[in-house]
């Protein structure tokens, strides 16, 4: 069984942080054969580690990184306005004013040509539960998170389908405004696994995403747009954050 004091002094020795009294204390402990064996094995394992450190190397990937970035941020080509319209209207102010007027005219024509709205048959909408036009999926692009969070709507209920296959133990905290949402329910679709969840007035805590699939049901009080903050973390280490837009 490990001696905690021995462990502490051994690690301080490795870090070069032993005080003079601590050195004496360590020396006394090391008179014991088992403790000396432990001390030697820790020190030797680090020596082996350091002796087998990969040799330092140099690379030059600046161009390849920047080329990738440039392709992603290439600005839209500025079109040169060589049409007769701009050639005839040289003055900037006149050009902008006439462009604006033309825009209004075109918009008015389009508006007038629209068919009139027909009343939606109430019988048709009765029983309609979800609005697929609002549904949205967030694909997680983090190296330790693989999967997606789907947002679906069913009347006043917002459903978050949290089905992430994480490569390490990760928990998730969903936070929202209690004036906009309330927890309606949470369901673990993998009841055999060790995951659990807790709920509060303005948060839902989901544990062990690596082996669980949760459905989180929130009631929207006013069916107005809002945000839900999702924080993913492993013990005390934050992995990533995601802001989920609720778009009623």
């Amino acid at each position, binding site marked *: 069984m490990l001696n905690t004091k021995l462990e502490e002094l051994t690690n301080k020795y490795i870090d070069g942080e032993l005080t003079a009294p601590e050195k004496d204390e360590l020396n006394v402990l090391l008179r014991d054969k088992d403790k000396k064996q432990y001390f030697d*094995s820790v020190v030797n394992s*680090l020596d*082996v580690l350091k002796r087998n*450190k990969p040799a330092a190397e*140099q690379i030059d990937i600046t161009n390849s*990184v920047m080329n990738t*970035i440039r392709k992603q941020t290439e600005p839209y080509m500025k079109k040169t306005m060589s049409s007769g319209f701009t050639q005839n209207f040289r003055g900037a102010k006149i050009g902008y004013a006439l462009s604006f007027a033309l825009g209004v005219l075109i918009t008015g024509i389009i508006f007038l040509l629209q068919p009139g709205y027909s009343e939606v048959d109430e019988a048709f909408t009765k029983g309609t539960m979800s609005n697929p036009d609002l549904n949205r999926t967030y694909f997680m692009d983090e190296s330790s998170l693989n999967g997606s969070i789907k947002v679906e709507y069913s009347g006043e209920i917002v459903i978050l389908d949290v089905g992430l296959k994480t490569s390490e133990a990760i928990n998730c905290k969903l936070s929202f405004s209690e004036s906009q949402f309330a927890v309606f329910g949470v369901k673990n679709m993998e009841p055999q696994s060790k995951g659990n969840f807790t709920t509060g007035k303005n948060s839902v805590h989901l544990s062990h995403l690596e082996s669980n699939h949760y459905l989180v049901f929130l009631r929207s009080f006013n069916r107005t747009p809002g945000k839900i903050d999702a924080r993913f973390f492993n013990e*005390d280490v934050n992995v990533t954050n995601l802001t989920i837009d609720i778009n009623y």
Partner: protein
Amino acid sequence: MQETDTLLVIEVIKGNTEAFGLLVEKYQNQMYNLALQITRDADLSKDIVQDSFVKAYQKLSGFDQCRKFFSWIYRIVLNEALNTQKRSGFFIRFDEDNPPHDYSKENNIEKDETSLKVQKALNRLAAKYKSLIVLKHYQALSYEEISEIVKLPPGKVKSRLYIARDSLRKSLENVYNA
């Protein structure tokens, strides 16, 4: 150093994309060696560092300028390397005709075998312990620097590293006794 990095980050956010190239140039070797120390695969490490820098650029607008860019990019590369290695199943190529990249001495078989054992022992550690071992003993970072990277208080980093060292000791013993 931090002020220069912060100024460069601000420049990039303002739209001067090319300023990011200076950050890449500054940190590419250190990040590459970090990835190499974790994966021991030169080509994979290059890809990891490239992807990490591109990812960092994409997320730069959300970067907290009170933090050090150095700690931030370190964390991205560290996570990317650990997770890439997990996905590849810790595959280590070893061929007597084509020894691992960092050992080119033909007759140094004993050192090659030891290197493999060390790598095996390291790979068996949990990611949170392996990262601390690499950051402290290969990258030679201080507890404060490690604390900023892993976002844990220095005291917790220390206690976790103590556990990591003991885990490494046991892991090496198991590998040698196997």
